[in-house]
C-alpha cells in the first residue's frame, strides 16, 4: 500500500473541489491533494455544455466545460497535485487528530493518505425512480436526466426518440431542449408540485422556445411497456400531491427522463461519523464550514444542493481558506 502525507486532502475535483484547492493554496497551504474519481477534473460541469455559468464569478456567461476549464487552468498553474480515476473508499479519524483517507486507483492500487484536514466536495446525485415510487413495469428507457445528458453530451448517443420528462428541475429543462435540438420529440414536462423547481429563464428558453408543455400538479402514475417504455399515464394531483381519480391521460413515449431533485452524496461523511442534517442531507457545519469533526470541511453540493455553480465556487473558496487556517493553527498541534 502506498502512503503519503498532506496538509489538505480534497475529495472531489468538481467546481467545489477546484475552488477549495485554489483558495487553500492561496492562503498558504503547501501540501494539497485533490482526489477525483473521474478521468478528468471538472466534475458534472463537463457534461453541462449549455451556457449560463459564471455570471457572478467571471462576469460573463460561460458553458459548463468553459467554467470548469478556468478553474482547472488555475489549479494547474498553482501546481496543485491531483490524482484522477481515484476513488476514496474511506475516511477515518486517528486518535492524534490526523485523518486517514483510503483511496484506490489503477496505477497505485490502494493508497493511504494521512492528512491534517479534509475538504469534502463530492457533490450530489439525482433522485432515482425508486425514491419516487412510480408504479408500473421496469423497462429500458427510464433514465435520470443527468444520465441522459451524459449519453448525449459526452458520447453523442441518443437514449430515446420520444420523451416525457418528470420533474421540472433545471437538468430536466435543459435536457428537454437538448433532446429536441438533437432531433427527439419532447412530449411534455410534468411537475408534481404546483410550481417549477427550475429557473424561470430555463422554462422560457428550454420549454417555451420549443413549444414543450409544462404540466404543473401532474405526475406519472404508471409506466407502460415491458421491454422498452411505450408510454406513461399522467395524472393531475391535488394540493397534497395525491392523484385525482379520473384525471389520467396517456402519453406515448419511448423514454421517461426523471429530474426530481438532487441528493448530496455523503457516504464518506456518514462513514466518518460526522453529524448529519436531516433537512439538507448534508453534514452539519459551523460558520467555518467545518463538520462536527474538527478539521473536516464541506462545501458545494455535498453540503446542500446549490442553485448556481457560482455559489458553489464562492462557498468552496471559503472552505479552502478555513481549512488552511485550521492547518496553520489547530493543525499545528496535531
Amino acid at each position, binding site marked *: 500500500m502506498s502512503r503519503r502525507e498532506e496538509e489538505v486532502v480534497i475529495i472531489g475535483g468538481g467546481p467545489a473541489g477546484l475552488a477549495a484547492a485554489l483558495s487553500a493554496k492561496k492562503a498558504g497551504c503547501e501540501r494539497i491533494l485533490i482526489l477525483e474519481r473521474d478521468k478528468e477534473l471538472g466534475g458534472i460541469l463537463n457534461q453541462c455544455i449549455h451556457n449560463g455559468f459564471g455570471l457572478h464569478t467571471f462576469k460573463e456567461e460561460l458553458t459548463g466545460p468553459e467554467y470548469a476549464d478556468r478553474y482547472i487552468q488555475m489549479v494547474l498553474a498553482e501546481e496543485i497535485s491531483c490524482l484522477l480515476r481515484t476513488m476514496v473508499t474511506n475516511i477515518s479519524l486517528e486518535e492524534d487528530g490526523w485523518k486517514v483517507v483510503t483511496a484506490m486507483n489503477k496505477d497505485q492500487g*490502494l493508497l493511504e493518505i494521512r492528512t491534517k484536514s479534509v475538504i469534502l466536495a463530492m457533490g450530489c446525485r439525482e433522485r432515482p425512480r425508486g425514491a419516487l415510487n412510480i408504479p408500473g413495469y421496469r423497462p429500458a428507457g427510464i433514465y435520470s436526466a443527468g444520465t441522459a445528458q451524459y449519453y448525449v453530451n459526452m458520447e453523442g*448517443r441518443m437514449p430515446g426518440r420520444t420523451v416525457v420528462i418528470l420533474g421540472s428541475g433545471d437538468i430536466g429543462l435543459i435536457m428537454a431542449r437538448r433532446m429536441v435540438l438533437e432531433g427527439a420529440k419532447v412530449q411534455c414536462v410534468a411537475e408534481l408540485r404546483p410550481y417549477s423547481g427550475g429557473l424561470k429563464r430555463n422554462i422560457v428558453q428550454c420549454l417555451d422556445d*420549443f413549444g414543450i408543455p409544462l404540466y404543473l400538479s401532474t405526475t406519472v402514475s404508471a409506466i407502460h411497456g415491458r421491454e422498452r417504455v411505450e408510454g406513461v399515464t399522467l395524472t393531475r394531483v391535488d394540493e397534497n400531491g395525491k392523484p385525482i381519480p379520473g384525471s389520467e391521460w396517456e402519453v406515448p413515449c419511448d423514454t421517461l427522463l426523471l429530474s426530481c431533485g438532487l441528493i448530496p452524496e455523503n457516504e464518506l461523511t456518514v462513514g466518518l461519523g460526522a453529524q448529519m442534517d436531516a433537512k439538507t442531507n448534508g453534514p452539519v457545519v459551523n460558520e467555518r464550514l467545518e463538520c462536527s469533526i474538527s478539521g473536516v470541511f464541506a462545501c458545494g453540493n455535498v453540503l446542500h444542493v446549490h442553485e448556481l455553480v457560482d455559489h458553489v465556487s464562492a462557498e468552496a473558496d471559503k472552505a479552502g481558506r478555513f481549512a488552511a487556517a485550521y492547518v496553520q493553527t489547530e493543525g499545528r498541534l496535531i
Partner: protein
Amino acid sequence: MKKYDVIIIGAGVSGCAIARWLAKKERTIAVLEKASDVCEGSSKANSGIVHAGHDARTGTLKARLNVRGNEMMDALSKELDFPFRRNGSLVLCFEEISRPKLEELKERGEKNGVKGLEILSPEQVRELDPAISDDIVAALYAPSGGIVCPFGMNIALAENAAVNGVEFYLNHMVTEVKKCDGYIITAAGEKFSAPVVINAAGVYADAIHNMVSGQKIKITPRRGEYCLMDKNCGNLVHSTVFQLPSELGKGILVTPTVHGNLLVGPTAEDILDKEGVDTTAEGLSKVIELGGRSVNGLDGRLTITSFAGLRAHLELHGEEKQDFIIGEAEDAEGFFDVAGIESPGLTCAPAIGEYVAAMVNEKYPAPDKKDFIAVRKGIPNMAEATDEERHRLIAANPAYANVICRCEMVTEGEIVEAIHRPVGATTLDGVKRRTRAGMGRCQSGFCSPKTLEILARELGVDQSKITKAGGNSAILTGYTKDVVESAAQDNASMAGNAGKQADVGKGGRA
C-alpha cells in the same frame, strides 16, 4: 437436431439446481431458457428468504423439501460461494385471539422437523429486535430462518452446472414439446431431442406440461409487490419478521437482505398476465402500511426501488393445489414436472435439485462423473473485501481499482469477470445481478453508461446492441445528429416562433 440425455426447460433457481445435481452423473444436459439470462422469472423477484419450514402442511413435499433445503443451505452456500446468513425469523402475533394459531404453527413446524422453535413474549422479542411493534402479544422464533441472495444462489448453481458440462441456451423460448421416441423440443426455431425432459418453466410450467400431458394443470400467477429500502435503514431489524399467515399468503414481511438493505413485501394478488410484473400504487402503499404494523420507524421515503414478482400458484382439475407437483407425469414417460414452485421455492431449490436428480437417476441410471467440480468461487467482492484482499486483487489486476458503481463500490474488474464467467452477463441487469452494479441508492444513474461501455467492449459489439434485459430493451436508440426529421418537427418548428412565449405552467390536458 441437438441431442441430449436430459433437457431442462427453465433456468430459474429450480432448473439450475436440477441441472447442477444431474451433472454429477455422466450425461449430456441442456437448459433451455426463454429470457436473455438465467434468473429472470420468479427467481429474481422474491423475498430472498430461507424459510425455517413451519408454514407448509405436514407431510407435503413443500414441508419436506423446505426443511431439507434449509438444512442444505450452510454447506451449499460455502461450496458455491453465495451470500447466505442465518438471521433467524419471527412470526408476529398481534391479538390474543390468534395465539392458538401461533401455537399451531409451532407444532406444525416441529412435526415438519424444524428445530429450535420457541414462542417468545413481547419483551423477549424486543430484546432480540428492539424495533418490533409494541402491539404484539407473542411471536414464534425460528433460529434456523435465514436470508440468501436469490440471484447469487441461482447464478452460482448455473455457473457450477456449466463448468460441469451443462449447456445453456438463452433466448430459447420453447414453443413445442412433441412426444415420440423421447421428446423433440422446438425452441427459438431450433430442434432439440432428449429421452428425459424436466419442466421447470415457472409460471409457464402449465403450458409446457399441457403440451405433452392429458391431465391439464393451470398456473395462476400470484403477484407480490415489494419495496427495497436504502442501506441506511438496513439495520432496522435483525430477524426476518413475518406476520401470522392469512388466507392470501404469509402476510407482509420485513427483512434485512444479505447485502444490508431492508426489504418489505409482498402483497398477494392473483392476476391473469404471466408477464404482469408491474407494480401498482395501491400495492406499494399497502406494503409500507402493513409492513409498518410489524416494525416501528419504517419510513417509506427510504425506498430505493420497488418491484413485483410472480409466484406460480397451481390448480389441478380446477382445484387449488397446496403442494408442489414434482415427478414424472403419469401419461408422459420421461417427462418430469417441477411445477407450482411458489414460496418457499427458493429455500427448497437445493432440495429440489437433489430430489429430482435422485428420481431421474433411479429411472435413468448413469455412472458418476469422476471429475465433477463441486466447488465454485464467486466473483470477488471489492466492497466487502478487507484492505489486504483489495490490495492483492488490484496487484493481480488493476481493473479492480477502477470503481464503476459508486453506491455499491463495484469495480471494472468485477464487471469484466461477471461478463466472462460461464453463463456470463450480457445485459445491464445481468451485470447488476452478478455484481450489484446499479443496485445502490442512485439506481445506476452514474454507472449505467460505464457498465454499458464495458459490456460492449468485452462482448465486442456496439453499445447500441446492449440491452437492459434482452429483447427490445436496448438502452440507446442511436446517435445524436442522426435526426429523424419527422420526430423533431413539432418542437423544432416552435423554435422559429419568434417573440412568442407560450403560457407557462397553465397545465391541464394536452
